[in-house]
């Protein structure tokens, strides 16, 4: 038989350990307060990660996304985006997530002889058409918003 009723509880922290724990706790709690606030400074309003704005994933808007590239010789070619990537990425494109749009356009620029790539997003519930153009070699796509005539 085991003589003790329970094993002894974990020892309480000493003064030094308590100070170290307090510093860690303060930093951890502060970070948790600050990270959601970064949403207010984000360029991409669709990016709600780590903010607790919603406990669900953002709903996918009903949008039509098309893309094309311009070659060095001036010719334009359509890109069948839905054949290139998983459909979940199409949802991000429809939500105009800049990180995904930039990455996709950058990837198309990796092919030989590509001068620029363009992505156009038309959503059913918006009058605006969003165009993202990346000149190959650039870092970020340039966004243009056009208001479509009804």
């Amino acid at each position: 038989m085991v003589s003790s009723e329970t094993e002894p509880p974990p020892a309480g922290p000493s003064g030094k350990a308590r100070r170290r724990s307090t510093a860690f706790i303060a930093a951890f709690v502060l970070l948790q307060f600050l990270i959601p606030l970064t949403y207010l400074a984000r360029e991409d309003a669709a990016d709600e990660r780590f903010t607790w704005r919603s406990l669900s994933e953002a709903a996918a808007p009903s949008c039509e996304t098309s893309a094309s590239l311009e070659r060095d010789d001036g010719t334009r070619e359509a890109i069948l985006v839905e054949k290139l990537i998983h459909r979940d990425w199409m949802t991000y494109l429809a939500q105009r997530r800049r990180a995904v749009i930039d990455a996709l356009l950058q990837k198309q620029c990796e092919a030989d002889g590509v001068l620029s790539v363009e992505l156009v997003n038309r959503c059913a519930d918006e009058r605006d058409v969003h165009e993202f153009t990346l000149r190959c070699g650039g870092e970020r796509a340039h966004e243009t918003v056009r208001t479509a005539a009804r």
Partner: protein
Amino acid sequence: MKPVEQYWFGNVALARPYLLLRLVLVLLAFDTWLNMMPEGAKYGVGAFNVAHFPWFDGFVPSSGFYLGVMAFTGVLALSQALYRPHRIAIVLIALGYTLGWSCSLLDSVPYHYLLSLYLLCFVFFPMLSARSAFSRSERVPQGSVAAYVLFCVTTAIVYFYVAAWSAARGESYWLPMTCCVGYLLVSMQDRVQLPAVRILAPMLVAAPLTFHLATPQPGWLPLYMAGIALIVFAPMQWVHSFGRALTQPARGLLDEGEADETGLDERASQVFYLSLFGLVVAPMLSMFVDLPGVKTGCSLTAIAMLVVMGRQLYFTPRWRPLWRVASLFGGCLALLVTMSASNARFDYYREGALDADRRGDQDAATMFQQKAERYAP
């Protein structure tokens, strides 16, 4: 102690961190297998990926990589829940789980990020045995567990922001705000002598239960949060009695097994070789799971277990390595049974077939389709 220090370092019933750690690890194991692994076919498609953090730039996780990480995390989590957890293992679970969601925006489920925060708190939890968390009498063992209070405060911050953003949108915010206040107060209930607090604090459990069970929420979030709320808010005696009943068989087994063991004897070497044999054999169960990356994931779990056991494998009470190996066996077996008894494997292959077909990749579509037919319910 100053009042602030009393808040963080005051006593709590040890039954709470004991049960909380195991509840989250068990749910996390089955959550990764049943909800995350079926999504694995999306990874690596078209060699395109965007990660949550810039340090993954240029890295495209394949479906095998993702499934391997999930299998590793799930098996290790369940094995740690089955037998006394080890801090190194909790660190590895936290790293594996965080790697799983953070390597791609394809997983943007908000509560996965919350679970990573929880796992970080667990790293600093005391690794309690059943005998240290539960007594045989009505006396409830207590101790200072700052990480448990941090866990409650982390949860409170989440509810605070849910309430704040709701208020900013002009929506109702009183329920998440009540949850926030509840979690901030309730970690003190075990040490406050005022009867009013001891009676009122458990009643606050109604707020998180209503918030999570009354409105539709993604995945297993309601399950996690309802379970957590019940352990955190329930009266101390209830949690202790529940935990004591739950761990009764394990405590009895350990008492009998370790009662007359004080050191090494000639059987120690047999146990050592038996443990090593078990570590080699347990991951072999994953061969029957038939998903890419799972064999590697389970083999890595066995290696992680070897690291966790370390010196313990050769020294100190000799049954412990065998219990650890048995828990690894339990984890691998549970993965196999879960995959065989659920639609997770079928969903993985069906989703892969549908997407490959849509992209016009006929070879991949045929391969996925054949597997999906094999595992169709």
